[in-house]
């Protein structure tokens, strides 16, 4: 069901483990299946110098975690913020339709880590960079922050088609939903 590249990242995940003294941490849970991912970053000169992940989840979740860490290493924060769930899945050469939601974890955890870093810098507009459009003020870190405004936790509803032009790649939501 998974392609070779996904299996390769699953078998030999890159940048896995805990980071000592990270500059930012993002932890997200997958509302669809209950899995959890944490990404820690070290930032230097506005670039992601090091990144590590820890994931409790399926093969796709582990592979996308590994993939996203490879993709952002050395990138500027701005570039990293532009990495989407879709681009991670694409970089992996695609995921089975009912596993696309797993890639949400990877990009979201990364973005949370960056937001955490920026919040720690003590400004809403750290470095004058673009912030995620939801522009939420994050006053804390380490997943303390249960976002209120999140209109949805079910995650089964289809994505609004943002970074998914074709919109074809959403979980099939087989029988149960």
């Amino acid at each position: 069901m998974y392609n070779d590249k996904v299996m390769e990242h699953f078998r030999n995940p890159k940048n896995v483990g805990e980071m000592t003294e990270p500059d930012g941490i993002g932890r997200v849970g997958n509302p669809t299946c209950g899995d959890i991912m944490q990404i820690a970053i070290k930032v230097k000169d506005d670039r992601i110098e090091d990144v590590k992940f820890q994931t409790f989840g399926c093969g796709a979740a582990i592979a996308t975690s590994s993939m996203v860490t490879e993709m952002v290493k050395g990138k500027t924060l701005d570039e990293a913020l532009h990495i989407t769930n879709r681009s991670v899945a694409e970089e992996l050469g695609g995921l089975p339709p009912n596993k696309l939601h797993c890639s949400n974890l990877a990009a979201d955890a990364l973005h949370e880590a960056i937001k955490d870093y920026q919040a720690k810098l003590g400004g809403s507009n750290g470095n004058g960079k673009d912030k995620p459009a939801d522009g939420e003020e994050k006053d804390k870190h380490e997943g303390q922050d249960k976002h209120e405004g999140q209109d949805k936790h079910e995650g089964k509803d289809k994505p609004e088609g943002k970074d998914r032009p074709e919109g074809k790649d959403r979980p099939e939501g087989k029988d149960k939903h």
Partner: protein
Amino acid sequence: MAETRRVYLDHAATTPVHPEVVKIMDHYMLEAFGNPSSIHSFGREARKGVEEAREQVAALMGATPNEIAFTSGGTEADNMAIQGVAHGRRDVGNHIITSTIEHHAVLHTCEHLEKAGYKVTYLPVDKYGMVDPDDVKKALTPQTILVTIMAANNEVGTIQPSAEIGRVVKEHGQAYYHIDGVQTYGNWPVNVDDLHADLFSASSHKIYGPKGTGALYIRKGIKLVPLVFGGSHERKRRPGTEGVPGIAGFGKAAEIARETLDQRIAHNTALRDRLISGLLAELDYTRLNGHPTQRLPNNANISVEFVEGESMLLNLDMKGIAASSGSACTSGSLEPSHVLLAMGLPHEIAHGSLRLTVGTDNTMDDIEDVIATLPDIVRRLRAMSPLYADKIKGHSAAPLTPAGEEHHHDV
């Protein structure tokens, strides 16, 4: 992937076909290939195969051959029983009693009937996955036309008190009693009279027979509205030219099961017990799911905390070991197993569930292989699990930010 030795531990999903079964199926494809309804010798030979199988399948459950109707499998047998009773007894009542841990072949059929106006009671189970016969008694009403409760659960292996439930049903009211016996038939002693069963579903591919064949036991005198209409095959209960090779194979598999049931149970039990005790001894934060003693001889189901099931399965598969899991991530529907949830297991525990089901083709070496292989896999996966990191640092689980791109705009 270079595959060395493979170990198949998913016999509750399906089993390899016994060589003798293959042989007889060959005969009914290559030589006795006639249509059993035909009058010539080809037809008569095929008819003989079907009727022999009917005797063999009946004998393994203490029934008479006339009470057996062949179907396309366990799913059809369940549907035929439940829908057949529902439609046939609409004038008597509209209430059905079942349990929350049934196979989808039963649950989805009941849900479908609910949409058509039937009332369905889904009885809860205890933490071992066991239905309480007393709950059945309390749920019975004058409107109850059918009680359908499985003999043993396919995921956690818990053997239900089917005979007691049957007694309760027969003592209180007029409901028919259907048992989904797909997991017990051929793996555990079955006698439809002792169970007080009116209807009993069995499947061939769980007992070393071919896929796509099953049977429904229909006690003499029980009337069902058939699912399909056509010729007079299977006494009109299930029209359509009989799948002779499959039926003959199923018969042979039932015969082998009957002749070797004691050995089969002893063999499976020994492997299962070693598997459970070995894994629980090797792995911390691990528990057995299902009943400690009232369980199918072939079923081991454990939950490994801080690890997700699919990633365990993939790793085991890479080592040539085939198993299954009730994890949300493996389910297609992305919900954890309804059985584990019905037993009150929290999502996290259901997430790390691993089902290993042994069979006659397994050896103790296979089991030792798994006991030697799984702990490394678990260690590796725990090393990358944020939950395990929390655990060893003594945190309780940290609150989470729900993910999902819905709330992040084009970042």
